[in-house]
């Protein structure tokens, strides 16, 4: 595999993670991560839509009129989202019910539209495919981490299997109710962003403006 291909594929995992660095796709990362099983299904659904739409957009990129390109992208993305939703409702009824509207909301997921506009519409097929896979994996990795933490500490289970026996079922573990509410996903994602940026300093954003007396101190 060529070096730049490797870069396109692996960079979104950590160096350029769609959630941690680009801070996109947060809505679904909060909503579907109370349990691991629906989160996994969401990862598969999003990656499928991302890969399929990137491939198609990259294939027709020379013929997309500039004025209507966003509409073209959204049409292609929503087609795949509807297909995924129909397939899930036919073959994974319970998970489709648990994910409810969030499969449909992939249409508005900024990661998918973002990759179409920033990458797939400007690059050949293979790099676009790798870029989509990479971003799908980067999104999935984060969703899996957040969902594992929330399910383990919020319900004492992982994929429905009891790990920490809750008090209500005769065990010792007092489940942390906060973990089941959306704010806990904010806290976990924020802590992960903090951890990654402490490790990879280059991800720290430059301040947009400086407060004047601090600027003076900086001059020394």
């Amino acid at each position, binding site marked *: 595999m060529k070096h730049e291909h490797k870069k396109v594929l692996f960079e979104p995992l950590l160096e350029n993670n769609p959630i941690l660095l680009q801070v996109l796709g947060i809505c679904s990362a909060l909503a579907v991560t*109370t349990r691991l099983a629906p989160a996994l299904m969401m990862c598969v659904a999003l990656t499928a839509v991302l890969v399929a739409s990137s491939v198609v957009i990259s294939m027709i990129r*020379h*013929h*997309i*009129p*500039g*004025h*209507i390109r966003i*509409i*073209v992208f959204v*049409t*292609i993305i*929503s*087609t795949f989202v*509807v*297909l995924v939703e*129909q*397939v899930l*409702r*036919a*073959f994974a*009824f*319970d998970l489709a*019910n648990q994910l*409810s509207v969030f499969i449909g909301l992939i249409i508005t997921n900024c990661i998918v539209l973002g990759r179409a506009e920033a990458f797939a519409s400007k690059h050949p097929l293979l790099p676009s495919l790798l870029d989509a896979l990479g971003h799908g994996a980067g999104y999935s990795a984060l969703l899996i981490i957040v969902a594992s933490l929330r399910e383990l500490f*919020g*319900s004492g289970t992982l994929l429905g299997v009891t790990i920490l026996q809750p008090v*209500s*079922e005769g065990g010792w573990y007092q*489940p942390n*109710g906060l*973990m*089941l*509410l959306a704010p806990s996903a904010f806290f976990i994602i924020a802590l992960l962003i903090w951890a990654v940026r402490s490790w990879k300093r280059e991800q720290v954003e430059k301040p947009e403006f400086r407060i004047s007396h601090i600027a003076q101190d900086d001059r020394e």
Partner: protein
Amino acid sequence: MQESNSTVKKAGPVRRLFALPNEHPVKTIVVALILCLICSVLVSTAAILLKPRQLANEELLGKQREILRAVGRYQAGMNIQAEFSNIETRLVELATGEYVSHINADHYHYARAVADPATRVEIAPEADIARVRAIAKYAPVYLVQEAGETRLIVLPVHGYGLWSTMYAYLAIEVDGRVAGISFYKQGETPGLGSEIANPRWQAAWRGKRIYDDQGTVRLALITAGKRDPDQAEFQIDALSGATITSKGVTHLIRFWLGEQGYGPYLRRHFHVGGGQ
């Protein structure tokens, strides 16, 4: 770029069209049309091909499995259809409590009947304790038969909680006690209100009385501090941290078992809640 160069030479009308600059209005319209056509064919093909399977899922997993759960006869991996064959579906006219035979109960679609002005029954806001806004004139009941006799009556009920409409099947013994309940669709707060879907909590419903001797619905969710030992047979523990969801559940029971709901039906056919 190489592609467009080579296409110009072979000047078929299609190729000439695609060789037009992307911003050309004709090409813009043609590209948009082709894209819409392909996408709509894909979407409608998928919808049509998968529809039978989705409907079967809805019937089997969305309805039959949940009814079996409500009557406590569901086990993972069982043949749902075979077990469900002991359950008879009938249609009831809610206002009179009479069975309806001119509509096929197996193919009756409740939500569609609510939307249809001919069968829609608006509920006055002051009487709408379960916040359902409107109900249908006819509603299904599911009768568990054993040796030619009705053993359990399963009623589909719904009402509004804190965030969502909660849907459940309530199974009742012919003597008017609760046999079980299964909340199968709800969007209440995870970990608090959505504990209504927890089988452990649902188990506490079993054996509770619904009507007092005067025929009033007394079954209610009561918070720990307010429980009255004399009324224990009418009281179920409310969910802690979910006051509004618990109230919603109490209200949907009161509504659906009251006069606007299945009250007349239960009184007429099972002498339940009719006063002794």
